[in-house]
């Protein structure tokens, strides 16, 4: 699966205005536009990159944070390999809503094993001086909610943006490796390299 450039779908979720589109744009085109309009529905960009010797194509899905766009965005959660939960460090409410976003994602993405699904948490707008959410609070939330990695980013200054997306890729790859590993050890290998399919047993 990881031998040639695999397409990995990651999705950015979080309240409206926390900077999801800006993070995507910063990462893919290295540009920042402070006058972006609300995202309507979903958008996505592809970026090819190499992480730990793996060539992957990252397909980054940016979503509309506002509640009124909910029905437009939720159909696109399916098939995600990783979810980037985003809040803004200058907006406490956006931080408190993280668990709602996580819930919405697991529900609509129909995640088989939510406990092991890779989430990455991003605290954006690090450049804004007035913080409402401390790094410690955020890290604590991540620990208590499944040990998600946490990154403090600034799409405006390009701080930590690339590392956050690269971490998402690492998490996906790690999960794949583990899945491969599990297949090889825990199943009777009737057909080499074929993932276990309940219908064929």
């Amino acid at each position, binding site marked *: 699966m990881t031998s040639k450039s695999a*397409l990995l779908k990651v999705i950015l979720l979080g309240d409206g205005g926390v900077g999801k*589109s800006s993070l*995507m*744009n910063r990462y*893919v*085109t290295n*540009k920042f*536009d402070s*006058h972006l*309009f609300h*995202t*309507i*529905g*979903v*958008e*996505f*960009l*592809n970026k090819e990159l190499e992480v730990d010797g793996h060539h992957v*194509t990252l*397909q980054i899905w*940016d979503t509309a944070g506002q509640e009124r*766009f909910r*029905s*437009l965005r939720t*159909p*696109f959660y399916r098939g995600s390999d990783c979810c980037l939960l985003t809040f803004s460090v200058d907006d406490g409410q956006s931080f408190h809503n993280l668990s709602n976003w996580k819930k919405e994602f697991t529900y609509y993405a129909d995640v088989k094993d939510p406990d092991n699904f890779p989430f990455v948490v991003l605290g954006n707008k690090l450049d804004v001086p007035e913080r409402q959410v401390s790094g410690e609070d955020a890290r604590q939330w991540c620990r208590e909610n499944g040990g998600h990695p946490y990154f403090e980013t600034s799409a405006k200054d390009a701080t930590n943006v690339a590392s956050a997306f690269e971490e998402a890729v690492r998490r996906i790859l790690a999960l794949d490796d583990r899945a491969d590993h599990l297949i090889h050890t825990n199943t009777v290998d009737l057909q080499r390299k074929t993932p276990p399919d309940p219908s064929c047993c």
Partner: protein
Amino acid sequence: MAELQPSDSGRCTYFFLYDGSKVKGEGDPTREGICYFYPEETPLDRQELLCGQLAGVGRCVSELSLSPVRVLQLRRNKFAIRMKDDFFWALGCSMDVPIVSVCELLDQLIDLFTFYNGSIRQSYQLNSQEALAARWAQYLSHLQSGSSELHHIFSCLRTIDSTNVDPLLLLKAALILQACQRCPLVLAGCILFRGRVVSTQMFPELTMKVMVHESETYTKAPRSNGQSSSSPSGGAVSSTTVFLTLSELQYLQSAPVDKDFSSHSTPHKDTVPPRKTRLSRTLSDMASTESEPSDPGSPPSPQKVSFSPDSTFSPVPSQSLEPPFSNGKHSHEAEEEALEESYYHSFHSNGGGGGGGGGDTSVFEEDSPLNGGRGDAACGTVFDFRESRSGNEESRDDEVQEEACRGGGVCGSTGDPLPPSPPPLPRSGALGDPEESPLVPMTLYMHRVKGLVLALLVELHFLSDTAATEEVYHSSLASLNGLEAHLRTISPGPPGPPGPYFFSHFDCIQSTLTTNLSGGPGGAPERPFVRATSLLHSHFCNTETLQEAIIRSAGAAVYGTRSVAQETFFQQHGASLRNSGIPNHQDSAFSLPSKARHRLLKHGVNLL
């Protein structure tokens, strides 16, 4: 009726371009002058016969009457005629196609050719006849392809079926276009999905022209369902040179959107000012009122600028067109600005018109964007023209004759040409204007994401401006990807029960059609409705004062009503018609208007 071939009746039977300059002397063979003839397999002597007859009669009548021939009838065909310098075009359709539609089709065809190739004379000097023949064939087949007969009757834009599309997605499309306009080299654009308009900033005629290139690139590109869109390489981007008339260009540039745009930080606000609240539903309206099954909305924003000059011709239509201005007034200051600007324009053109020498031409220039650009502005302007051109008694005669033909079906077989008729639609577009006012080359830029296309009219040097191309490409790519994903996942849904009635609603301003007809090639039960619609549309176009009409046969009655902005046609099924042949107030046909008003409300058609 039995002799009609429903599926073909809207189609062009003949089309040719004849260059009279090649046939001057007595001994010159007619075939020398035939630049293109459709159907191409027509035997050459038959081609010569038709070209010779029509060109001869056309010329003769024009010289006798000192006005250009617009329509000729020959046997069972109705020919729209255009003459320009030594060039002579004729396009023939069967007799049951309304004259307006035939003329419109020919104008569109010539407009298309000019748009992609520049002036006729020059393109025949620069290119081989074979190469250009392929283009004529391409444009002709494009104009006739795919759409229903109703689309042919109204010559309207093909739009996405907005009943299943979340209005927010239409807003999204409009915002993508506006974002592109932040680049000053971008004039206007449109977004198409699988050959249908999602959103457009151009006037309908221009959008129609752009769509030809879109369908061309679509058929050329192998359908890759994979990741063709994912590569940021130039693969998905193409461009071609196109030619706008000066008036079209002025018209695009006059859009207030362009100037204001960069200064506004909220594009949403910008969508509002140039649009009318009543005549065309705005995108912001759509976001709020879902009940409107409105279409993607070609914002006829700058239209009002060019409407107002019409007041120099006849006050009536422009009065009825003004309410949209004032409707728009209530919400934004920006609108008032736009408003003032349009008054400014009209003031100017009025001044020009009244100011003695050269006045006429200036009025004409102001007016021509309408003609070149918008046949559909029609109902308003058609009549302007008639009135302005000396209140034309001739035209009335023609209408009568046309009606007589329909009624009796007699004169079709005589082969006598009709006397020169006035322009049925004021789209002089490809004819006079383009060459009198020079053509301006522009670039048509296209960015395709699978079935979705962003088409932009840009300045010629846009492509060499790397910063500009990258800005436009990158600012729109993510949104285009997303919009494509959204539109692709919309299932067309079952067409739903046809309902106990047929209706079709034509928006003259946006040139769009809403109908509950299946659109397939003439289902038998739809035939009478389509025919009646065709006939009524023709009457509406020819008779300015006609507002409502009911047309009936023994088995069916169709009601038609129109305003400056729209035409609506309605037929109730199953109602047994009580009709003894004598006018009778109990005749159920008379209940059609109220039925139409009630039934069509849920389709967003308000006839109240």
